[in-house]
Structures are given as C-alpha cells and as structure tokens.
C-alpha cells in the first residue's frame, strides 16, 4: 500500500495566457486532513478540481493511491489522456462535495445517495438502499431519506451531498468551500460531520474559509496565492505565527472582517 | 447527376417581380406591428380592469387562431360588409394584428425582465415611478426586446407568403403562377426558397448589426 494517498507533482494549468497553477507539488498521506486556504483567484479551488479532473491541467502529474490520474506518459514520454472509462473509475474512488450541493433535484435524498453505488459499483438496488439509509443516518438525516432536495434546508442538503460522496466508499474526499453558501446557523451541522470524518481517519482535502475549523481539526494547512503554495505547515503554527507577508496580510483581512 | 444551375437565371427574374411586393408588405407590417404592440401592451398593463381584460382577450384570440384564418376573415368579411379591401390590405391588417399581439407579449416580457430590484434602486434614489420607468426600466427593456422582435420579423417575412392565397402578386404568387404553366417545379420552388432564405438572411444580418451597435449581444 503506497504511503501517499494523493501525490501532486509539478501541476501547472493555464487559462489561455493566464497561468492559474504554477507547478504545484504536495503529497498527502492516508488519513491526513489537509486544508487549503487563500484569497479568491489563488487557484485553490482549481487545484482541488484537478485532483478529480473536473478541471484539466496541462503539466505535471497527479497520482491517487499510486495510480496516475487523467494523464500518463507514453513510451516516447508524451502526455496521453487516459480513457473516459478509466477516469470515471478513478473519480469513483474520490468523493467530492460542492459549494452549491448539486443534489439531483428529481430524486429523493435516498436515491441521490444510492445512485452512485447502483450504477457505478453495481451494488444490487436493495443493498444500495440499505447502505444509503446507513449513510444518511451517519450524517444525522435518517428521517429525511424520502425527502426531496427542495424540501431540505441548505445544511441538510449539504449533509446529503456528503452522504452521497461517502456511499461510494472513497479513499479520499474533496471539499470545495462546502459551507460558503450556507446561512451561518447551518454551517455548524456540516462542520460537525466533517469533524467526525477527520476523526475517523478519512483522507480529506478541504478548501475553506472556516479558519477556526481548520485550526482545530486539520493536520496540515496550505496557503495559496496567485497559483503558488506560499506557506504550509501545521494549522496552529500557520495561523498564530504566519511567516510570509502575504499570509499575514490575508489573515489580517480576516481579523478585520470579524472572522477570526 | 449534374445539375444545370442556368435555370436560376431564367426563373429568378420572373419571381423577382413579386419581390418588391413581398418587401412592401413585410416592412410596413413589421413597423406597424411594433407600434401597435406598444398600444396593446399599454392596454395589458393598464390599471383599468376592463381595458386590461379586453387587451388580454384580444391577445389570446389572435395568438390561438391561424393567421390564414384571420386573413380570410378580413378579406371576405370586408367585402361582405360593403367596404372591400384589397388582398394586400387584408394581409397587412392581419399581419399587424397578429404580430402586434406577439410584440405586446415581447414588450411585457422585456419590462418584466428588468428586475424589481433595479426599479427599487431607482425609487430609493428618489426618482419618481415615471422617471424610474423612463431612465432605468425602458432603456434596459429596449435592449432585451430587440432580439425577440428580430425573430418576429423573420416570421413576418415568411408569413407574407400567405397573401398569395388572396391574390396578392408577391413572390409565392408568382412562383405558383409559373408552376402552373411549366413542368420545372423543382427549379421554381428551389429558387423561391432561395429568395426567402436570402430575405431572411439579409434581415437577420441587419438585426444582428443593430444589436451589436446597441451593445446587446
């Protein structure tokens, strides 16, 4: 079993002439909870979306559990895109939770959670339904299994989204600012679930603005700005004793906004 | 199979005799319909209940009946009532009545699309409702409204073909006349189709230029 769950090596991405990721490299061990913070435009969300190839990257390598994601090198050393089937298979091993939940509105919470296992893991429907109920119970929504997304609050929808990702039994999970679109009083219920996941040893990459959460529960934090990793280390150290001026300025702005 | 395109040079001039009639019907129809639509939408949005109801009924009737039937109604009805109108006038009237109703709906949608919030921002600045309409809502609504109106214009050009049935000598009428006399029907209607494609292309192109100058699209 490889020591690193996720390996990111020299990943660069351009939007036309604009370089949004500048040769990013970092590794994540199994069970590690990594938080990525930074101002908007820093590339943190783009990096996250490259991990499961929802966004393409032009240079570099990403490995999930040792296997190359999205692109391999052929015999001549040229970059070759893997087949859509292989990419889909690897995506199934990663769970992703989105800022705007993206629940399927025409399906109940239960069906949302069970769709992946039924179609991708080929779990028999009855078993998938049972597992889905268990997942919903795990995020505290056992009684909402038959509710439609339109009937749920933002916090509940996001928890269903987490259950949907968990149902695929992922080896790692990706969180894209999952509390940014929630009313403040609904944020806690989602962070609670995430805290449990960290404590259960899930490998997680979390892009977030929730500094207190990051300080309390993350194992490592990365500060990105203008497409680069500017500083990284233990969250406590990063937040209390920022070394770089850019991080200091970023955190100052947070304190000015009464968020820290 | 080699196609001899020389028929175009023979057929086109004959059809072209109807071209000016088509254009003389389409353009006034568009302008009058656009103007009539303003009147109708004022009725639709009026605060007087009866006026709004009449406008609504008019729009619903016109939208749910075919233009052809409306043309027949006016053409034959006018003669019976003692004030016969030419096929051209009947066609023009029907086109204006029908497309004026559609224009009114387009205007209504355009006004609605300028959100409540923008209007409220205007009111909050201290502008009177009338000035808010003139300064905030109208300019934005006009921009919103031009693309759908351009679409309607294309439909009007195509609907002018219907007046051929009430003996108006436009494009389609000439084509039919020719087709009744010769066997070259494929060539005739192919050429006719080209004429309409050209008309709608020129019109759409013009509208797109307008949209770009007004910085809409």
């Amino acid at each position: 079993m490889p020591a690193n769950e996720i390996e990111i090596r020299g990943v660069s991405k351009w939007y036309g002439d604009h370089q949004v990721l500048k040769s990013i490299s970092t590794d994540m061990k199994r069970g590690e909870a990594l938080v990525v913070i930074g101002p908007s435009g820093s590339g943190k969300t783009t990096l996250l979306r490259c991990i499961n190839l929802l966004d393409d990257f032009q240079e570099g390598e990403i490995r999930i559990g040792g296997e190359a994601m999205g692109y391999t090198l052929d015999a001549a050393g040229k970059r070759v895109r893997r087949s859509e089937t292989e990419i889909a298979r690897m995506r199934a091993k990663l769970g992703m939770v989105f800022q705007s939940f993206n629940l399927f509105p025409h399906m109940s919470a239960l069906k949302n959670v069970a769709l992946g296992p039924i179609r991708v893991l080929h779990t028999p429907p009855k078993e998938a339904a049972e597992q889905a109920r268990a997942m919903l119970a795990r995020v505290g929504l056992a009684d909402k299994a038959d509710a439609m997304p339109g009937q749920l609050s933002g916090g509940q929808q996001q928890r269903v989204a987490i259950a949907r990702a968990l149902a695929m039994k992922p080896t790692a999970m990706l969180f894209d600012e999952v509390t940014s679109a929630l009313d403040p009083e609904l944020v806690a219920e989602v962070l609670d679930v995430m805290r449990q996941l960290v404590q259960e040893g899930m490998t997680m990459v979390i892009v977030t603005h929730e500094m207190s959460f990051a300080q309390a529960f993350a194992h490592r934090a990365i500060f990105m700005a203008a497409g680069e990793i500017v500083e990284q280390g233990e969250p406590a150290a990063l937040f209390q004793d920022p070394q770089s001026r850019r991080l200091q300025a970023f955190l100052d702005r947070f304190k000015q906004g009464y968020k820290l | 199979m080699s196609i001899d395109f020389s028929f175009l040079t023979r057929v086109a001039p004959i059809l072209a005799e109807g071209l000016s009639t088509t254009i003389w019907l389409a353009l006034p129809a568009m302008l009058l319909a656009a103007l009539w639509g303003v009147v109708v939408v004022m009725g639709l949005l009026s605060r007087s209940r009866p006026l709004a109801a009449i406008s609504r009924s008019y729009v619903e009737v016109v939208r749910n009946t075919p233009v052809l039937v409306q043309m027949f109604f006016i053409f034959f009805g006018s003669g019976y009532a003692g004030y016969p109108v030419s096929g051209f006038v009947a066609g023009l009237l029907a086109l204006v009545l029908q497309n004026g109703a559609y224009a009114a709906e387009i205007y209504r949608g355009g006004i609605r699309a300028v959100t409540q919030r923008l209007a409220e921002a205007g009111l909050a600045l201290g502008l009177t409702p009338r000035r808010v309409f003139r300064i905030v809502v109208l300019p934005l609504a006009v921009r919103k409204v031009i693309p759908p109106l351009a679409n309607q214009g294309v439909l009007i050009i195509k609907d002018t073909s219907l007046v051929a049935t009430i003996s108006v000598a436009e494009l389609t009428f000439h084509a039919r006349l020719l087709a009744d006399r010769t066997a070259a029907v494929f060539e005739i209607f192919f050429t006719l189709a080209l004429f309409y494609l050209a008309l709608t292309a020129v019109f759409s192109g013009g509208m797109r230029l307008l949209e770009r100058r007004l910085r809409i699209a």
Partner: protein
Amino acid sequence: MDLLLHSLPLLARGTITTVYLSAAAVVLATVLGIVLALLQLYGGIVLRALVEVYLYVVRGVPLLVLLFAMYYALPYANVRIEPVTGGILVIGIYFGAFMTEVFRAAVLSVPKGQWEAARAVGLTTPWILRDVVLAQAVRMAGPPFINTCVMVVKGTSLVAIIGLADVTYVGKQIVERTLAPFEIFGAVALVYFVICFALSRVGRYLEGRVNYAS
C-alpha cells in the same frame, strides 16, 4: 344562424381532419426533434453540420413554400403518397426544426453542477444523460414544447391552400358558396381557439410543475 347549424356537420368533419393532421405532425416533429437534438449535441462533425443546414433552411423558408413544393412535385415523384400523408410529412419535418431547438435548449439548460456532481461520483455521459439530465431536461422542455404544438395546430391551416379538407378549407368553401364570412370564419376561428387555448392551459399547468417540491 341557420346557416351555421347547417354547416356544422361539414365543419365537424373538417375539424377531425385538422385534429388528425395536428396530432400526427406533432408526433413526427417530436420524434425528429429528440433525435436531431441529441445528434446536434453529441453527434460527430458531419452529423452536426447536416442538422445545422436543416435548421437553417427550415427557419428561412415559409411553410407554405414547402407545402407547395410537395404539392407540385408529387405528380412527378415516383412515390405515390396520399396528399394527407404528404401534408403530415411536410408539416412534421418543418416543425421538427422547432422541436429540435426546444429539446436542445432544454438539455443545455440543466445546470453544469449536475453534470459535475454526476461525474464526481464516477458516472459516464450516457448514464448521466439517462439518470440525471434527461429527466430534468424534459421538465424544462414542457412549456416550449406545448408552444410549438400550438404552432403546429395553426400551421395545419395551410393545407387548405393545397386543397386538403381541413376545417379552414371547409370554411372557405362554405363562405364562397353562401357569402357569410363572419359566422363561418368565426366558427373556424373558434375551433382553432378552443384547441390551442386548451393546449396552452396544459402548458401553463406544466410550467407550474417545473419546481420539484414534491
């Protein structure tokens, strides 16, 4: 008024023809619309180009011209088909272009986030369409679909010009004989109004159901 009563049986038979033409043309147009929309969205370059040409031609040529073309060409064609069938074919193919646009817009209006969430779970395009996108697209397509159906019904009136005995043709015949345009064409208009208005009501109801509350 007497005349109206006398004309009812004829008008009724014309109405049946109108309804039949409309229904058949709608079915044809819908099938065409779905197939061509999918081709336009997911087909290869050649297929996409063909669909674009078809759409461009139909959008720029009047329905009447197409009907005339069929009407005059029919005697020369080797294929013998009933005029009614010909009318259905032309009207169906004409409005098939409108339907293509309706379905294409509906699929495209499904939010990108739905695609991303489905991909993130490991689903591939055909499955995403089947389980996630099409169900939502169909709901969004309801109102414009109904609008196009209303256009089809109104469009069938043009077959009167090529001698098919729909309600407009029957009406014109009666008026030419009896010179009572207001009553007869009024009745014809009423027939169309009832059909189209009823369809629009269905469309209005569907519009309300685009939300997924339950």
